[in-house]
């Protein structure tokens, strides 16, 4: 294929700023490592770009995407990522089922989503192209590994004709690069077998894209050296492949120019790039430090929550005890046992694990002990889509237990927000002596964003307020400990841990008498206890912040979201406003109880739109609770909403309001 102009990228729908792509405008030389050739180069400025790397699940696309992300973070861009990989570790090579992709959106300004449509697609084989090209923005760029486009591979991917020559990609700028053979040539000095040498081709691709977008190269070279330190041959091969990719961009004159996405004007501070799972694990450690309670995790491996177990297992210097249990039930059970003993107890899982833990969560409701239950939601029902995202466990968290068993529910809205959400879950669990659901999802868990690190001293302090003395005088004048004598304000019961002399007591799943906590089958007492437990959870509404509404123009339409739809809804609101439309938006972190002002907020708007990656679960709760005619926007494809999808739904409602 002949040389074509490298055309400007389209801006993703979230942002209507003009694309500043001064192609041909020479700019300063980049600071490239001295080991690389440095001919004068031309760069053009872009304010944002969305790149998707796609290949076989064994091709190292997640690593490639992750390194590109880190390089961009260090460069100072704002960014958001969307990893997308199959459940199989190594699905058959070259098939659509085995395609693994990583999308990253980098910008010189504040962004909130990984982008609706990639503007650049790197495809390592025909299957990767076929599975992803449909998402590519019109006018976008395809960079493909032409070595992988033989007849057999095309056939495996289901192509009847070669897409490179059949005209099907006429709308895109297509660049063919012989990545495999160039990699093999580059790593020849290492002397590895071709099969092994070929494995470095993802670093060739990374080098090429790093050149194309003027990313700093030193962090990647340093990372390669550290990551593969145990295998010097691999360090050398990956380094050579990476540099070969970079130099290819520099010298091949395939591309008109390199591009630059300038650093974003972020708030001053120290930043790091975190995934939701890492931020959540750190939030739990922070809650342990800020409460003085030792952290205990009872867990069982499950996608996409296992990284929480992995991360917490690394940090034993904080006194973190991680217990990999025999099953989900034991993970929750052990955590509850540790809670009885005075630990900040956590169990982490995904939907199928919640099914199994439900019995223990019900016991925790009855025992009134603090327990944090983290559900990293994934596509269901049953095993469903283990590696794909969904928000369909809200009603499960809300109602998934027998009997009247209310629990507070908190949902994180962005990867970094998982940190704050974990601390808030711990605060509610400890303050109210209750199990708390903390909902995230696969998108938040594996997605990442730059995070301005908080001042540790500014984090909330959690008061365990453990019982140390008897709290009641018996009829004989003797001091006693009543485990179910409640705090008048919070209705929380005292938490007396074993080892405290004089406070020995028995608790269990049988109904207890109000106050004394003895087993009681008295009908009136049961009703009182059911209502007390409900009132305790409902009362949390008084201790959480009011719902804030972003409504600069006095809109008639409110977009109400929860969880990981945050970034998309924010982007949709910005886009609509940029078009002169008035729209309000609010995002719920607390889903049970709702903030006290939610009813009043909802009443202010003619229309309420609730986008959710499920079949309308929050919408159902809101309609039931507030008797308003909320409009549900739903999607269950294992992927987040696109900004355009929310915009379109909002525009329809705006038209209805006008009429």
């Amino acid at each position, binding site marked *: 294929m002949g040389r074509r102009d490298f055309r400007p990228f389209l801006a993703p729908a979230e942002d209507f700023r003009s694309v500043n792509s001064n192609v041909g405008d020479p700019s300063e030389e980049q600071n490239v490592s001295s080991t690389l050739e440095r001919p004068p180069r031309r760069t053009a400025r872009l304010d944002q770009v969305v790149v998707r790397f796609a290949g076989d699940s064994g091709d190292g696309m997640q690593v490639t995407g992750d390194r590109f992300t*880190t390089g961009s*973070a*260090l460069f*100072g861009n704002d960014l958001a990522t969307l990893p997308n990989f199959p459940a199989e570790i190594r699905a058959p090579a070259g098939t659509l089922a085995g395609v693994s992709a990583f999308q990253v959106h980098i910008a010189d300004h504040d962004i909130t989503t990984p982008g609706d449509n990639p503007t650049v697609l790197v495809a390592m084989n025909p299957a990767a192209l076929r599975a992803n090209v449909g998402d590519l923005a019109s006018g976008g760029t395809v960079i493909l590994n032409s070595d992988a486009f033989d007849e057999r591979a095309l056939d495996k991917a289901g192509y009847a004709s070669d897409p490179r020559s059949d005209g099907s990609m006429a709308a895109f700028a297509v660049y063919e690069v012989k990545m495999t053979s160039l990699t093999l040539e580059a790593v020849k000095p290492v002397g590895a077998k071709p099969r092994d040498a070929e494995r470095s081709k993802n670093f060739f691709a990374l080098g090429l894209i790093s050149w194309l977008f003027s990313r*700093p190269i*030193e962090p990647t070279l340093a990372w390669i050296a550290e990551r593969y330190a145990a295998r010097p041959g691999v360090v050398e091969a990956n380094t050579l492949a990476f540099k070969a990719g970079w130099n290819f961009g520099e010298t091949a004159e395939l591309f008109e120019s390199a591009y630059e996405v*300038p*650093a974003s004007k*972020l*708030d*001053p*501070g*120290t*930043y*790091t*790039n*975190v995934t939701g799972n*890492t931020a959540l694990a750190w939030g739990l450690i*922070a809650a342990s430090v800020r409460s003085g309670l*030792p952290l*205990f995790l*009872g867990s069982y491996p499950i996608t996409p929550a296992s990284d929480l177990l992995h991360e917490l297992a690394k940090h*034993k*210097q*904080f006194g*973190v*005890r991680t*217990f990999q*249990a*025999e*099953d989900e*039930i*034991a993970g929750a*059970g*052990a*955590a*509850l*046992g*540790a*809670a*009885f*003993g*005075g*630990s900040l*107890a956590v169990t982490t899982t995904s939907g199928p694990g919640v099914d199994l833990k439900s*019995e223990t969560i019900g*016991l925790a409701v009855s*025992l009134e002990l603090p327990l944090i239950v983290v559900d990293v939601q994934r596509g269901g029902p049953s095993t469903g889509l283990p590696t794909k995202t969904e928000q369909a466990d809200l009603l499960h968290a809300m109602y998934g237990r027998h009997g009247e068993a209310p629990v507070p529910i908190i949902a994180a809205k962005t990867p970094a927000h998982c940190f704050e959400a974990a601390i808030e879950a711990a605060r509610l669990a400890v303050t109210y002596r209750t199990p708390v659901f903390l909902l995230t999802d696969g998108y938040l868990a594996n997605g990442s964003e730059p995070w301005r690190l908080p001042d*540790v001293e500014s984090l909330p302090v959690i008061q365990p307020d453990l019982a140390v003395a008897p709290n009641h005088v018996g009829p004989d004048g003797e001091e006693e400990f009543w485990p179910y004598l409640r705090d008048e304000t919070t209705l929380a019961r005292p938490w007396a841990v*074993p*080892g*405290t*002399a*004089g406070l*020995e007591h*028995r608790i*269990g*799943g049988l109904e207890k008498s109000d106050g004394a906590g*003895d*087993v009681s089958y008295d009908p009136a007492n049961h009703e009182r206890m059911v209502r007390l437990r409900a009132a305790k959870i409902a009362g949390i509404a008084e201790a959480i912040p009011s719902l804030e509404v972003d409504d600069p123009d006095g809109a008639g339409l409110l977009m109400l979201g929860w969880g990981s739809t945050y970034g998309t809804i924010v982007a949709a609101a910005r886009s609509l406003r940029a078009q002169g439309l008035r729209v309000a938006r609010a995002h719920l972190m607390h889903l049970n109880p709702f903030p006290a002002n939610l009813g009043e907020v909802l009443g202010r708007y003619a229309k309420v739109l609730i986008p959710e990656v499920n079949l309308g679960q929050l919408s159902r709760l809101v309609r039931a609770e507030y008797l308003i005619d909320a409009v549900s926007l739903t999607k269950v494809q294992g992927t987040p909403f696109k900004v355009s999808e929310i915009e379109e739904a909002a525009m329809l409602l705006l038209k209805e309001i006008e009429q």
Partner: protein
Amino acid sequence: MTNVMSAPTTSRKDWATDQEVRWCPGCGDYSILAAMQFLLPELGVQRENTVFVSGIGCAARFPYYMNTYGMHSIHGRAPAIATGLAISRPDLDVWVVSGDGDALSIGGNHLLHALRRNVNITILMFNNQIYGLTKGQFSPTSEVGKITKSSPFGSLDRPFNPLSVAIGAEATFVARTHDMDRKHMMETFRRAHDHQGAAFVEIFQNCNVFNDGAFEHLTGRDQRAEMLIPLRHGEPIRFGADNQRGVVMGRDGTLELVDVASVGESALLIHDETRPDPGLAFLLSRLSGGVDRPTPIGVFRDVEVPDYGTLMASQLEEVRRRKGEGDLAALLRSGITWEVDGRSPTAAPGEG
């Protein structure tokens, strides 16, 4: 668990609660409760450091009657809950009270893994070979052919031998006692309590309502001498009213019951609780079964293996020694970090 030997500072009544005991009159559970309440003062342990955790079933009401910390939890889950408590609080004495249905049916998995990990808990399994609280269905230890409400034509289930299960999981302490002999129970519980690691004790317990006399052929006053084989560490394994019978290793690798006179005392198997390999203890457990077969009683196995909670605590200490006490600010900076100064959009890479 450590045994502090000192003069008792508590008495039986200190360990009893004011709750009315609600087992059926005549239930074997009463004598087990009494044995425990008599024993604890002798152990010199403190009420506030003692926790009883149970699941569901008749036996699981036990914690309500002990004036200690206690949790009556959910069916089968007591070993899991006790694991969390014991490994997060190695300073406590944690007892698990369970039954044959609770421990071996619905909670079988948790039992196996608590034993495998050697968690420092003492598990008492009341075996009455029946579901009592649900009013009389066959249990995982009921004999084949048992007629119950849920098996009107006879149970088809092959029963578990609880000790074979425990020894198969390589439990580090395994013993058996029965509800008709308080002294034997107290001695067995004491040994189990003294063991550091997971201890499993099967207690033959009579359910006089739904399975009365299930162990009468073994534990009845007139039967015991001929039907119970007392295991004593370091001694030849003998039994019978006149110690006339014994246990030898047969040529096919199984154990045989013999008349001592016919083989000579030197041929008898010497009981060794401390053998690291569980094979012989497993063979001893296989002697049980059927109404006419004598069954061993006492401590089958008592080996020293580091317990899980201690290992976990040492690992925490070791990491702390290596990395220093956790520093939250440093944790947040443990990945790649960069500074944004607010004036220039250029960011400088740096490692935190």
